[in-house]
């Protein structure tokens, strides 16, 4: 009943782990899969190891958290060893990659093609170094170049993860679709945001600015999914503030075929996946839905 598919890849339910959350090791991702997620998106990684920013990298605020971890990762050579150890049996393993140039993305894609089911392109991190993350995803030409280069090199479906921090997300979405993206994830964190400690009059985060995630960004994510659903034909994965089955249903009605869960793990633990799956199944039974597919985009009416 809960199964869904994204451009031909089958998921046993519509829940996956969002990039950047408990995605640094095969161990933690296997734990999340055992806890009920149908797929995991790894933490974003690059060609070379990168330590990220100094702490504080995360601070809690009303409605969620602000983070500037700074894309820390052990580099593709080390990370391949983690990816290989993720249990792919009936699970979907998605690698999130980042770079600055088409060549870097191409190299990364070629390295990991054989060991993952899908690749998500991080062209949307709002606290990345200049030239990375959202610096790509806020520019149509750059997005097109990166997505098409990655798509050309890839043997598995390619997902572009988009930033909401643009004037019109549908333009970027259409550009990525035209460049060959098989699916779109939206949204990455909002902002950037900032938290200032008023006793010492200083921004708390070492990077000062960070991406906002959690409950407060869900309405923004829903509206972005809704708008992009009307603008493109490729499948959409919703992400941003998913805590409950109600949130999942909202995303699906807005047009998402699956959702990613991240910040909720802070409050609910990894148990959040099985809880939402159970509640979602119950909801579908009560409302008379027999598949995720028939629920996708219902909020648009007259489909």
């Amino acid at each position, binding site marked *: 009943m809960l199964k869904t598919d994204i451009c031909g890849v089958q998921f046993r339910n519509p829940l996956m782990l969002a990039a*950047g959350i408990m995605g640094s090791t095969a161990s*933690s991702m296997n734990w999340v899969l055992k806890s009920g997620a149908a797929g995991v998106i790894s933490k974003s990684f690059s060609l070379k190891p990168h330590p990220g920013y100094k702490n504080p990298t995360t601070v809690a605020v009303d409605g969620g958290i602000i983070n500037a971890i700074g894309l820390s990762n*052990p580099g593709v050579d080390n990370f391949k060893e983690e990816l290989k150890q993720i249990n792919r049996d009936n699970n979907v393993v998605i690698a999130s990659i980042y770079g600055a140039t088409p060549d870097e993305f191409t190299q990364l894609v070629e390295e990991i093609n054989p060991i993952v089911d899908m690749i998500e392109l991080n062209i949307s991190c709002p606290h990345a170094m200049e030239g990375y993350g959202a610096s790509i995803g806020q520019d149509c030409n750059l997005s097109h170049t990166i997505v098409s280069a990655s798509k050309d090199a890839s043997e598995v479906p390619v997902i572009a993860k988009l930033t909401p921090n643009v004037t019109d997300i549908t333009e970027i979405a259409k550009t990525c679709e035209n460049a060959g993206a098989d699916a779109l994830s939206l949204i990455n964190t909002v902002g950037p945001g900032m938290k200032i400690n008023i006793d010492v009059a200083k921004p708390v985060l070492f990077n000062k600015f960070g991406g906002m995630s959690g409950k407060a960004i869900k309405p923004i994510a829903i509206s972005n999914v809704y708008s992009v659903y009307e603008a493109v034909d490729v499948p959409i994965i919703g992400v941003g503030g998913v805590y409950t089955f109600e949130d999942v249903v909202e995303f699906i009605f807005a047009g998402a075929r699956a959702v990613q869960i991240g910040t909720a793990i802070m409050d609910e633990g990894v148990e959040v996946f099985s809880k939402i799956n159970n509640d979602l199944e119950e909801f579908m039974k009560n409302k008379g839905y027999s598949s995720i597919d028939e629920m996708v985009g219902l909020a648009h009416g007259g489909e």
Partner: protein
Amino acid sequence: MINAPQIVEIKEIVSETPTIKTFKFDWDSNKFGEVNPGEFLMIWNFSDEKPMSISNISNNELSISVKNIGEFTSQLHDLKVGDEIGVRGSYGNGFNTDFDAKKLLVIGGGVGMAPVTALTHKLVENNEVDVLVAATTKDELLFLEDLENVGANVHPCTDDGSFGFKGYASDCLNSLLEDSTYDYAFVCGPEIMMIGIFNILEDAGILADYSLERYMKCALGVCGQCCVDNTGWRICMEGPVFNSEKIRLIEEFGKYRRDASGVKY
């Protein structure tokens, strides 16, 4: 628990050893939450933020004890009374303190004595407690007097034999186990020491709580930096204290850890 740094003023600084200082500050537990032995705080000195064990928990006052081992801890050691730091937490699961009329063994190595000293203060209320205090040399032995004053049986141990038992903590433990046995044990120290202790306690059939340390970023259970192989448990949420049953499942215990990039070493 508070998840954004709260600014506190350092009320008192004690030079415990040539390398370890204790910093005391007020903590309104009604406002910021109850703190239990084994939990940790994230300490922000306005240029970096690191996890620190709590070495003493009193009415509305907490202490952290910090060994000067690098840039951040050296900056902390330069702080003066009246200076401010940011604190958030407390985080993690603490030690199991649900014991009554038991014979308990507490083992701490170096600055690893910090969390188990706060623990001992609690355990001695209802139990007979032996504390094995290990350090490289006499001057580095931590909290001997304090532990004796609260009524623990203290067994000092130094690598160089300058005070107490001569040898490693594991040697001292072996000698204690010749005459005694214990209902439960608690261990914190360098991991190379803890793995030795773990092997001895397992052979002796003594269950224990072990406090682990890993590079930490968010401390909120989201970033994934402090997850351990092969269970994936987060040191900041499921840890830092793990019982024997759980420690047996942590395959990287005593073998390797990951740096800020996630590279194993």
